[in-house]
Every structure is written in structure tokens, then in C-alpha cells.
């Protein structure tokens, strides 16, 4: 993830860096060059200092020698006797600080005259002194090495010139010589150290006079001296523990050398004030750049703030176009692009809203819209609201008859008509399938609801013609009121549907207001649904078996397995009460499998016990068929129990084929292939399309007990029964008639050549104990 930083800081830092870095780079390149130039410059200046001091030293020696020459001339002129000579020399010593003393030596080196007077020295032998024998031998002026004067205790040198066969010598005080160079040195500033050495490198003069007094030698004198002379370039050497740049000049008339030392630090220190100015300048530039960048960022920030503000408004749902007038071209372009994006979002938002809130088939608001609006109404509206739940009575049948696309067109037409309606308040939404909800607000009395229902009825009483098919739709209507019945959207919808279900039960085009009893039913159903989930595990289900009798022989054909639920609190729950819950929750699949398993096992046991081949009929729900594992489940039950497949009869109803005819046929063909029998249950109650009957893979037709019940009441019903039986036989189907409760019914059916019968006349559904008893009685009867 990229590191995030503030644009303001980024701009300011980069601005400052863009000034500081180039300046530093330039400084890094230029500084050494400037330094080198400065070093050369200073070295040149120091050379001048050295040469100047060397010249002054030379002059000093010349002046000193001149004094000896003058003395020599005076002596030669023989104008002075010894005493006068001493007086003269003493006056010279007093006049000139640099002269410490004079000696006049004869040819043997004997001190003949000495000034100031010293009887210890006068007459002494100086023949071993270098100045004596060198001057005498060379007949040239000489300068001695430094030594400590025993008179003054100070460093001293001797200068000497030949005189007659002897020598004239003068003692020069090095302190005075030092002062000459130090005074010059001061004139050149205190950045340099000036030293004068004799030919052996011993200091004659030095800023540090102690070095002169202690006759220190210049460190590495000879090598420095030679290097200076040979290379003529900048020489460096250590002096007092520091690396120094050295300039050098020789004193012409004596073997003396002038050295000017300067540390590199002092050169740097000369730069320091300028460096400070440069640094100050850089700092000022950086500060200036900061101000500039701040000013620049202020404008940019303003543009950003405007854009930010506008984008926040857009995020809050205000899709206004942003003002694109900005002083920066980039921002203007950005804003224009943004406006383009806003337009696209707005359009897409509308589309999404339509998709989210409106039903594409009818163009009416959908369930989501209904929920949100209703919530809003409940929040804002304190007056009564009515929820009128409409459901087309026979929409399923329309779909079955004319096909699903026909049903869709019916819904579209309905949508168009509703949209054309002038609604006084509220709205109509399509929830699912043929289910609509009219939300009616500001209800003063229930009559308003009834008049609204009437309005709707008038709209739909007109027939709908699609592809030359004219149909009429009928509604059952459930009404619930806010806040009388419920306070939440969920409850209102639930109760409206419950009321609609109630209306449907009452008959076609009925309406019903929600009543508290409906609420109780809803609660009971919810309790059943919750209990149903654990009923198998808790072994609350059990099976009852109703015998089926072969009419011709009067023998037992087999049994129909019927599920029963013994609820621990609610007692015996009729199948009609829970089967539809099991179907709607999908629990019918495990329940159906359990029934299959138990029934098959039971039948195997019974057949073994009675040594017969009785058939077991098991009811199958359409939901079970839709489960992919259904055929496998049946096969596994047969396999596990060991029941012969031809002793299993699956009872199905016609509506099983409504959803997927082909699919169901495939499944039954598979099961029939292994010998399983299929029976069509409740024949005559439903759609009972005779066209389908021929195509269905059934072995047995099971005629609903309603026919049996009415058979003895009206002759026509008896004829219908006979005809159905005859038709079934023609179609090579066996017939079982349910609901045989009286002997007349049985006799009648016998005469119609009915194959099998089932009903209370023979036996009620039997539990395990009763079944054993029944079979025992059956065996006893047959044995008689």
C-alpha cells in the first residue's frame, strides 16, 4: 500500500528540496574549488610575508655587519685606543638593542678588547670558536649558530668579520631579532606563525618565544626545507600537532630560513563568516520557497476544497453539476469529467431505482418499495392505513391452461389498468405472482376500504383478451388495518395475507378483514412449523395403515400408509394441518423418506407374518418429486427393507405434473421399470384432465371419496362412478374407490366391477397393535 501524505507537505517539502539540493550540490562542487583557490591565494600571500621577513632579516644582518665594518674602519684609522674603543662600543650597545657585546680578537683568538668590559673574558682564548677560525680562514663575514649567552643567559648569535690578522665579533641578541620578525608578523595578521631558523633548523625567531629560548629545532626541518626548495609547490607539515601549510624564504646573506605556517583551519575560519552568509541565504531561500509554496498551495487547496465540498454533496445524494469555473485548467478539466461522471451516476441511479423498486412485468411498485414506503408512512403518518391484499383466485389455473407467458401478459394488462386508476391516496404494489397490495392512507372509516375494493373490482370485472382468449379474473381480498391490527410492516403484510387466505376459503371474490382468530391460526401454524423440525428426531410421527380390499375375492389387497403426528402439547395433529407446512418448509422430504422406510419395512414384516404378497400404498408429495434424490430414496428404501418393488404403490396427485410434467414422467418411468406401481390419488377432485390421464404412467386410478359419498344420493353420481370405472378399465387401469362406508356403496361398486375398495366399512386406519388384531381376525375369517 502506498504511503499517504498530505499534498500540502509534499509540495512544500519538494519545493524546499528543489532549492536546497541544487544549492548544496553546487556548494559541494564549488566549495573545494574556492577552497583551493583560497589556499593558493593565502600561500602566495604567505610567500610574500616570508620573502618580506627574509628581506628584513637580511637587512638586519647587513646593518649589523655594517656596524662591524665601521668599527673595522675606525680601528684601521687608529683613531681610537683600546679604552676609547670600549667606550665607543658600549655606546653602540646602549644605542642598539640588538647588540649584546663586541670582541676584538687577535690572530691567535685572544680577546683583546671586549665590550662591555669583562675581565674574565678579556685575554681569553677563542681559537676554538667556530666564528673565529672560520672567519679567519675564509676572510669572509660569518654568522654562528645560536647559543646561550653566558652574560645574558639568552639565545645569541655571533657575527664576525676579519680584521687585520684577527677577527671582529659582535654578539646579537636573538630576542631582538625575534621582535623584528614578530613585529612584521603582527602587521600581516595573527593567522600565521612566522619562524626564522638558522641553518640547522634551530629557531632564531618564533611567535612562541619559548621555542627560541629553548633552542628548539623546526620539526623535520631538512626535509621541509628541501621539499620547499625542490617542489616549489604548497608544502604541508605538522607543527604543534596541526597540519600546516608552509611558505618559505631564505635569508640571502646568512644561512637563515624564514617559515610562515598557517593552519588549514584558519583558512576555513576565514570562510566561516561567508559560509554563515551563504547558509543564511540558503535558509532565506528555503523560507521564501516555503512562503511561495504555501501561497501556491492556498490556491490549489481552495480548488480542492471546492471540489471536495461538491463531491460530498454528491455523495449525500445531491447530483447538482459542479461549477467548472476554476483558475487552473487541470481542475476545470477534472470538474468537467466529474460532471460527466455525475450525469452517468444519476442516470444509472434512476435505472437502479426502477429495477430495485418497480416490478418489470406490471410496472407497479414492488415489495421492496412497499416495505420502504410503508415504513415511512408508519413513521410519518398518524392516521389509519389499510393494507388490501388482492390475489387472483384462479391465476394458477390460468397459467396451467394457457401457459406461463399468458399469465405474464395478464399481469401486464392488470398493471396497465392499475396505473391508469386515479388513486386518491397511497399506491398499489405487486408482491409476488398474482398477489397485489393496495396501500390506502388516511382512512376515516372502513367504508373507504370497501369502496376502494369496489373500484378495483370494477376495473377488473372487464374481461382480459389476449391472443383471442378472453378471461375474467376474480380476487379474494384480505384487509388489515394500521394501527388497529398491527404496528409493523411485517405483521401488517402477514395479517393481510392471512385475511386473504381466509377470504379465499370463503369462496370466489370474497373479502375478509383480519380477525384475531386468524392470528391464532398463524401462531399455531408457526408453532407447528417449529415443532415439525424436531418431530422425526423425537419420534413423534407414526404410521397408520388402512386396508384395501379386493372386491372380487374379498381378500386383502394391501394397505395405504397414512402418517400421524402425536404432538406432545397439541395432541394428535391432522395431516391436513401439517402436511402443507412440511411442504412449504421442505421438511416433507425427510418426512416422506421416513414414511417410505417405515412403510416398506412394515409391509415386509406383514407379508412374512401372513405369508402373502400384500401391497403398500405410500402418498407422495409433489415437493418430494422435485427433490433430485427421490428415485434413489425409493430404491434405497426397497433395498433396505427387502420389499419387492411390485408390492410398492406410490400415490400421487394430478398437481404433481403441473410444474414439470416431463420431469415427473421420467422419474416414474425409472421407478416403474423396476416394478413400482403408480396410483393417481384423489381422482375427480382436481383438474382431472382426461387428456393427461392417457399419458400418465399410472397403474391405478384412485377415485376420491367425494364420489363415493354422493353415489347413493343421486343416481347421476352413481352413473358417473360407473363410467369412470369403465373408462379406467378401458385404459387398462385398476380402480380403487375410497370412502366406502356402507354396504350399499360396496354392493354398488361390486356391480360396477370396481377392482378395489377402501373405507371405514372395512376398517379405519390402524396402528401397529390394531393391525395385528385386524390381520388375526382376517386370518380367522378366511380359515372359516
Amino acid at each position, binding site marked *: 500500500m502506498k504511503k499517504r501524505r498530505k499534498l500540502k507537505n509534499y509540495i512544500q517539502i519538494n519545493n524546499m528540496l528543489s532549492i536546497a539540493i541544487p544549492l548544496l550540490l553546487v556548494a559541494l562542487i564549488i566549495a573545494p574549488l574556492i577552497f583551493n583557490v583560497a589556499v593558493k591565494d593565502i600561500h602566495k600571500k604567505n610567500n610574500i610575508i616570508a620573502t618580506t621577513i627574509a628581506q628584513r632579516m637580511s637587512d638586519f644582518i647587513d646593518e649589523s655587519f655594517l656596524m662591524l665594518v665601521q668599527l673595522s674602519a675606525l680601528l684601521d684609522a687608529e683613531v681610537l685606543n683600546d679604552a676609547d674603543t670600549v667606550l665607543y662600543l658600549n655606546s653602540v650597545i646602549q644605542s642598539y638593542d640588538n647588540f649584546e657585546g663586541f670582541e676584538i680578537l687577535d690572530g*691567535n*683568538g685572544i680577546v683583546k678588547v671586549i665590550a662591555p668590559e669583562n*675581565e*674574565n*673574558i678579556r*685575554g*681569553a*682564548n*677563542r*681559537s*676554538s*670558536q*667556530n666564528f673565529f677560525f672560520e672567519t679567519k680562514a675564509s676572510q669572509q663575514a660569518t654568522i654562528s*649558530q645560536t*647559543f*646561550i*649567552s*653566558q*652574560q645574558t*643567559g639568552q639565545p645569541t648569535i655571533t657575527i664576525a668579520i676579519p680584521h687585520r690578522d684577527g677577527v671582529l665579533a659582535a654578539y646579537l641578541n636573538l630576542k631582538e631579532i625575534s621582535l623584528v620578525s614578530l613585529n612584521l608578523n603582527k602587521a600581516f595578521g595573527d593567522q600565521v606563525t612566522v619562524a626564522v631558523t638558522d*641553518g*640547522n*633548523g*634551530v629557531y632564531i625567531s618564533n611567535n612562541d618565544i*619559548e621555542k627560541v*629560548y*629553548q*633552542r*628548539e*629545532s623546526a620539526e623535520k*626541518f*631538512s626535509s621541509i626545507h628541501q621539499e620547499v626548495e625542490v617542489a616549489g609547490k604548497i608544502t604541508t607539515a605538522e607543527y604543534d*600537532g596541526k597540519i600546516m601549510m608552509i611558505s618559505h624564504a631564505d635569508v640571502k646573506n646568512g644561512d637563515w630560513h624564514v617559515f610562515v605556517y598557517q593552519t588549514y583551519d584558519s583558512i576555513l575560519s576565514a570562510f566561516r563568516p561567508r559560509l554563515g552568509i551563504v547558509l543564511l541565504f540558503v535558509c532565506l531561500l528555503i523560507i521564501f520557497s516555503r512562503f511561495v509554496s504555501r501561497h501556491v498551495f492556498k490556491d490549489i487547496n481552495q480548488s480542492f476544497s471546492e471540489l471536495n465540498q461538491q463531491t460530498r454533496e454528491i455523495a449525500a445524494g445531491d447530483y447538482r453539476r459542479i461549477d467548472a469555473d476554476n483558475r487552473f485548467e487541470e481542475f476545470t478539466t477534472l470538474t468537467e469529467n466529474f460532471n460527466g461522471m455525475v450525469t452517468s451516476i444519476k442516470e444509472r441511479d434512476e435505472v437502479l431505482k426502477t429495477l430495485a423498486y418497480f416490478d418489470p412485468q406490471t410496472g407497479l411498485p414492488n415489495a421492496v418499495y412497499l416495505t420502504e414506503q410503508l415504513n415511512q408512512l408508519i413513521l410519518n403518518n398518524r392516521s389509519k392505513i389499510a393494507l388490501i391484499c388482492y390475489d387472483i383466485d384462479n391465476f394458477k389455473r390460468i397459467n396451467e391452461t394457457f401457459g406461463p407467458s399468458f399469465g405474464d401478459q395478464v399481469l401486464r394488462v392488470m398493471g396497465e389498468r392499475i396505473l391508469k386508476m386515479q388513486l386518491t391516496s397511497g399506491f398499489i404494489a405487486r408482491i409476488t405472482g398474482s398477489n397485489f397490495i393496495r396501500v390506502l392512507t388516511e382512512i376515516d372509516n372502513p367504508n373507504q376500504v370497501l369502496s376502494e375494493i369496489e373500484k378495483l373490482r370494477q376495473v377488473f370485472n372487464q374481461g382480459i383478451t389476449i391472443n383471442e382468449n378472453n378471461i375474467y379474473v376474480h380476487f379474494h381480498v384480505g384487509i388489515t388495518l394500521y394501527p388497529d391490527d398491527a404496528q409493523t410492516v411485517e405483521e401488517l403484510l402477514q395479517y393481510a395475507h392471512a385475511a386473504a387466505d381466509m377470504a379465499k376459503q370463503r369462496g370466489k371474490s370474497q373479502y375478509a378483514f383480519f380477525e384475531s382468530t386468524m392470528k391464532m391460526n398463524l401462531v399455531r401454524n408457526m408453532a407447528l412449523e417449529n415443532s415439525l423440525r424436531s418431530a422425526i428426531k423425537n419420534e413423534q410421527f407414526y404410521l397408520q395403515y388402512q386396508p384395501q380390499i379386493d372386491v372380487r375375492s374379498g381378500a386383502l389387497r394391501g394397505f395405504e400408509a397414512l402418517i400421524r403426528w402425536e404432538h406432545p402439547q397439541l395432541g394428535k395433529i391432522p395431516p391436513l394441518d401439517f402436511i402443507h407446512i412440511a411442504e412449504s418448509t421442505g421438511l416433507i422430504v425427510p418426512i416422506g423418506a421416513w414414511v417410505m422406510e417405515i412403510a416398506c419395512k412394515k409391509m415386509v414384516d406383514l407379508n412374512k407374518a401372513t405369508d402373502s404378497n400384500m401391497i403398500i400404498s405410500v402418498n407422495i408429495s409433489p415437493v418430494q418429486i422435485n427433490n433430485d434424490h427421490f428415485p434413489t430414496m425409493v430404491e434405497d428404501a426397497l433395498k433396505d427393507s427387502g420389499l419387492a418393488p411390485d408390492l410398492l404403490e406410490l400415490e400421487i396427485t394430478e398437481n404433481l405434473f403441473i410444474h414439470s410434467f416431463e420431469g415427473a414422467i421420467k422419474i416414474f418411468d425409472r421407478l416403474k421399470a423396476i416394478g413400482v406401481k403408480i396410483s393417481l390419488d384423489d381422482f375427480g377432485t382436481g383438474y382431472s384432465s382426461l387428456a393427461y390421464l392417457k399419458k400418465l404412467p399410472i397403474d391405478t386410478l384412485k377415485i376420491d371419496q367425494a364420489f363415493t359419498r354422493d353415489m347413493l344420493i343421486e343416481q347421476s353420481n352413481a352413473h358417473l362412478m360407473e363410467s369412470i370405472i369403465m373408462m379406467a378399465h378401458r385404459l387398462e387401469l385398476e380402480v380403487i374407490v375410497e370412502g366406502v362406508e356402507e354396504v350399499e356403496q360396496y354392493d354398488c361398486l361390486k356391480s360396477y366391477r370396481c377392482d378395489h375398495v377402501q373405507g371405514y366399512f372395512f376398517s379405519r386406519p390402524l396402528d401397529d397393535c390394531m393391525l395385528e388384531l385386524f390381520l388375526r381376525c382376517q386370518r380367522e375369517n378366511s380359515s372359516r
Partner: protein
Amino acid sequence: MNTDRRISGLVIFVIWSLFMTACTQQQPLIIGFSAGLTGSASEMGVNGRNGLMMAVEEINAVGGVNGRHVEVRVKDDQNNPEIALAMDQELYQEGVSFIIGHMTSNMAKLSLPFINDNNLLMISPTMSSYELVNQDDHFISVVSSNDVEAKFIAANILQNGGKQIAVIYESQNKAYTSTIKDLIAADLAANGARISYEESFESGANPAYQEIAKRLLESQPDAILILASSFDSAMFSQQFYKLETQLPIYLSLWAMNNDLILQGGDAVEGVFIPSLLDTESQNPAYLNFRAAYLNQFNAEPTFASIYSYEAAMILFTAMKTAKSLEPETVKAAIIEKGTHQGLQDKIIIDEYGDASRTLYHYIIQNGQFTKVD
């Protein structure tokens, strides 16, 4: 925040690294040198410093002592005991534990107690007072003590038939001159000779050389003994020269340097002088040193410069051997080694840190020191 932490970490690391580098860098080893470098008797001190500097240059050229560069703090004691003590104190305060010096025995009186009290180690090239011998202290001398020299001079006098000896001795360096005078007197007395006249003088105070010389001659001695520096010895010799006396003159080791001949000229011709140096030595170490010294100072090395060089070398070798810079340990290493190689001969240092050196007879002939076999 993270960036700040990283930058702070980096800065701390860099500072720490620099600190560690600075800490691990070897500090120089500083030794002290204290001698009279100014004034009329500074010749020995200056020569001693020159010799020491050669030793330091030599040791630094081979990497210093135990990896540490050697530096010298030079102090001028002006041949004054009070100043000598003050200089020792200065060196001590500057963190110096080893001092080469002083050059004259008179300095010992005030200096040595301070050295001992503060556990410093002083190695003197030339302090030879008999009073310093046989003491377990923080002092090591690389020169023989006065008694050896006294015996040597006395023997020479006796050998030349001296019976009545007149002595002139310097009073500032009494620790040396007076001691040696007494030792010589004892030796002479033991052999039937005696000191018939003695007079002291103070060097540097423009002594009345001529007057003293005259008084001495008035005592009619058959030999003259001068216990003084080279200059003073030369000056007295000049007076005897002027007074045209033919008496043999005996000088002490103290006067044994070039200045004697320079200042003495013909006046010192024929004087007897003991020497700690064999000027004819062919020892390569000596020859190399002499050549280097001549090159650097354009002068012959004196015994003061050679002994200072040797004192420094003994110190550096002991530091290396002991791998220590503790004065006590270094002193123990010097004593334990016992025999040290000098430039010309072996230096034997006993348990008290006192040395035994060979002495040579010299006479000045034709303006040169000439060894007498």
C-alpha cells in the same frame, strides 16, 4: 510517525557509531620531559631533549608503544629545584605518569618526593648524585652515581701524581659537585693526597672567575679540579690559561661536551676529563644515532643527548615488555630486565634503579677530546 522513528533511529545509530569510533581510537601516550632548557646551564637540557626527540621519532616510526603514538610534553625547569617541582606537578596534572629528566642532581631534593608520593616514574639520563643511590623509589637513573665518577677522577689524579689538589665547585648543583668533591677527598686522603684548597661559585651570576682562579693558585696546589658545567669549566680554564699556569686541570663529567672546547679554546688543551661516551665507539647503533643526530642538529651528540635517548628507549622497551602503562609495572619490568643495551655499551640497572656505566679517560688535545687508553 514511523518515518520520524526511522530517522531518529538512523541519527542515533550514526552518533553512536561516531562515538564508538572515537572511543576505540587510540589516544596518544604522553610522556614528560623536564630539564633546564633556558639559561646559561641549558646546554645539557637542550641536548637531552634533542636525544629524547630522536628516540620518540624512532619509536613512532615503528608504530609507537603498544599501538599508541608517543608525544612529549617538554618543560623547562630552568635548573631551579622549585621550578622543577612545579613542572613535575604540571605534568602530573596533565595526566603524565612517566617523566624523563631532570638533568641535574640538585633537582632531586624537591622533585623526587613528589614523584614517589604520586607513584610517577622518573627516569633520569644524567642525575647521578650519590645521595640518590640505594633507595627503593620511583626513580631510575641510567647514569652511574657520583661515587663511581669520584673514584675514577681520584684515581686519575693520583695516577698523575697529584697530592695537593685545589678544587673549584659549582654551588647550585651542590648535590652533585659537593658530593663528588667529598668522595674524591676521601679517596685522595686514603692514598696520601688531599684537597688543599676549595672554593665554590654560583654559575650564571657572573662569577669572579679570575679572582677565584688567582686565589686558587695562591694555595699552590699541584693539581686543579673543577667541578662545574662545560662553560664554567672553560671559563676557569681560560683564567688559568691567562695566568699561564701549567698545572694539570681535572674536570668532571658535567663539563664533558663540545661547549667546553668551543668556550675553552687553547685554554682547555690538556685538561683531563672522564667521559661517559666512547667517541671512538664503532657500535653500529651508536654510529647510526650519531649520523642521524648530526644530520638533524648539525652537531655531535653529547652524553646528555645519548643518555636521554637511552633513558627513553629503556622506558619504551619496558612498556612493551610489560604490555602496561602502569608506572609500577614498568619500573618492575626495567629492574627485572637488569641489563639493557645502550648505544655503546650495556647498562646494568640494579634493584634500586641505579645504573652502572663504563667511564672513559679523555684529554683534550688539539681542540679535540682524545681518549686515553
